């Protein structure tokens, strides 16, 4: 029997309640101040994960390209942050919100442009040769990841580099008896802005409409007269640029940049993509928040389970919805 449209809509939107539900369920399990601290930490972590994963979900969903080189663009963004913050050390060290925000803004803009440009070259030189062949995609992008990491070592050196946060982003605010790190609020705000912008782009513009349609049925988009390859390049560039932005934010959060900062995130990003449903920005956002929150809550309540908590979350979601929370396109 086919479900009624109302029931179908309800079922489709059900995963949206997961994040609020998790917040409510965790409230009685700890003191309010601890809950608030962990919640803000989890949301901020989730937003940063979203920044790093959002591009990849579109690349997977639309282009069906299995790229393992995404971590390299995160790493590139992180090292660019080191260079920009280092070059603007005077502004970064000044006790001025405006100067500190300017440093962050410049680092984000440089990372956005440079990783986007690197993504363009990567798509034109490497990815375009392996469309339609998943095995070759995996092999060639793993190779690309190794080469990119070595290039980064050649430019910035092999040693880990410190990356102090701009002065105003250090320390915490005391709110409701809880200590909230200022930087986490900045990261959460940026994640929200990017999510909002992506949401508007995908839902209110012709390009967004094409991307959503292309994720579902590329062949039909071409039969309507659109050149999907151009769309592929645009999505790949946007995806890598977002990875660079995520790399800047994650590096400033860690305050230490290593050459494996991006590849270390790859597994977590894949888990988010699988939980959210490949190709779904809303799914990616929800999954990233869930992963961020679960990691922080479980890390506090049962530290021994923290490492496997995200994998357990993924298993539970897949048992409920085998194609992820918000499945897109053909099975």
């Amino acid at each position, binding site marked *: 029997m086919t479900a009624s*449209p109302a029931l*179908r*809509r309800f079922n489709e939107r059900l995963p949206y309640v997961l994040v609020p539900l998790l917040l409510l369920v965790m409230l009685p399990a700890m003191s309010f101040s601890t809950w608030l601290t962990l919640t803000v930490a989890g949301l901020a972590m989730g937003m940063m994960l979203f920044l790093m994963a959002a591009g990849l979900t579109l690349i997977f969903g639309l282009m069906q390209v299995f790229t393992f080189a995404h971590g390299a663009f995160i790493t590139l963004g992180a090292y660019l942050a080191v260079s920009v913050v280092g070059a603007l050390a005077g502004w970064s060290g000044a006790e001025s919100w405006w100067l500190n925000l300017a440093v962050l803004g410049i680092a984000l803009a440089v990372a956005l442009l440079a990783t986007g440009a690197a993504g363009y070259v990567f798509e034109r030189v490497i990815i375009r040769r392996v469309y339609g062949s998943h095995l070759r995609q995996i092999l060639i992008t793993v190779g690309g990841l190794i080469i990119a990491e070595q290039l980064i070592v050649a430019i910035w050196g092999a040693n880990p580099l410190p990356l102090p946060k701009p002065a105003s982003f250090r320390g915490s605010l005391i709110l409701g008896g809880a200590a909230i790190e200022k930087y986490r609020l900045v990261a959460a705000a940026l994640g929200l802005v990017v999510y909002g912008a992506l949401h508007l782009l995908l839902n209110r513009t*012709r390009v967004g*409409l*094409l991307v*959503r*349609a292309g*994720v*579902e*049925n590329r*062949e*039909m*988009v*071409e*039969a*309507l*007269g*659109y*050149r*999907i390859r151009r769309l592929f390049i645009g999505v790949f560039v946007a995806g890598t640029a977002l990875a660079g932005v995520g790399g800047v934010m994650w590096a400033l959060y860690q305050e230490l940049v290593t050459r494996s900062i991006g590849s270390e995130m790859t597994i977590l990003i894949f888990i988010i993509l699988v939980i959210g449903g490949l190709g779904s920005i809303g799914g990616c956002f929800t999954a990233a928040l869930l992963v961020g929150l679960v990691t922080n809550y479980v890390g506090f309540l049962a530290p021994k389970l923290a490492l496997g908590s995200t994998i357990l979350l993924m298993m539970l979601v897949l048992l409920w919805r085998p194609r992820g929370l918000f499945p*897109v*396109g053909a099975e």
Partner: protein
Amino acid sequence: MTETPLLRLAGVHTHIGRYHILHGVDLAVRRGRLTMLLGRNGAGKTTTLRTIMGLWRPSAGEIVFDGAPIGGMETPDIARLGIAYVPESMGIFAQLTVRENLLLATGPAGFDKARLDEVLALFPALKQKWADSAGALSGGQKQMLAISRAIIENRRLLVVDEPTKGLAPAVIQHLIDAFLRLKSTETTILLVEQNFHMARSVGDDVAVMDDGRIVHTGSMAALAGDEALQQHLLGLSLASHQ
């Protein structure tokens, strides 16, 4: 002088991987007429349509649209010549709304209000489902949406693959009415169909395929009136498919 057909296939061969599917298809689609492409399952009808649209590359032969060769061109370029395609799967974007599905098929200026009204008059059910996601539509409504999307802009040729597949008789009759109205506007249509009631109701010309070749061409009326020919070409009689 013989009128030049809008679309002509001459000696078209198509291979899909190791398989040789089309073995020299010769087909002419005349302007302003509805040409039925009939044949048993596996005869090569869908492959012929996909080859016309550039979704499979012809390995030999010539495909000419309005005097210009299009064989081997990219699908978007073929579509931009004014050829609309409705695949057997309908190609509906289930996550998009009815409005968004139609909007994708319009030019940069968006909907032409008069044209949109005409299309929605053809399929009024879509008007009520305007803001609903296309995935929530019934099978018949999805087919109506697929055809509406193909005609929301003026096209020179409609290529439609088995629109009645899996639909209830009442919906099929609705589609027949819609095709008859489209015919009255002199739209050129190439239609693959297994439902012979529909074929007989709307077809002007007919081409019958078997084993990757065209084995018969003529008028639909002549085929409909010749039971022996139907048995010979299709292995059945149209009269038994009312």
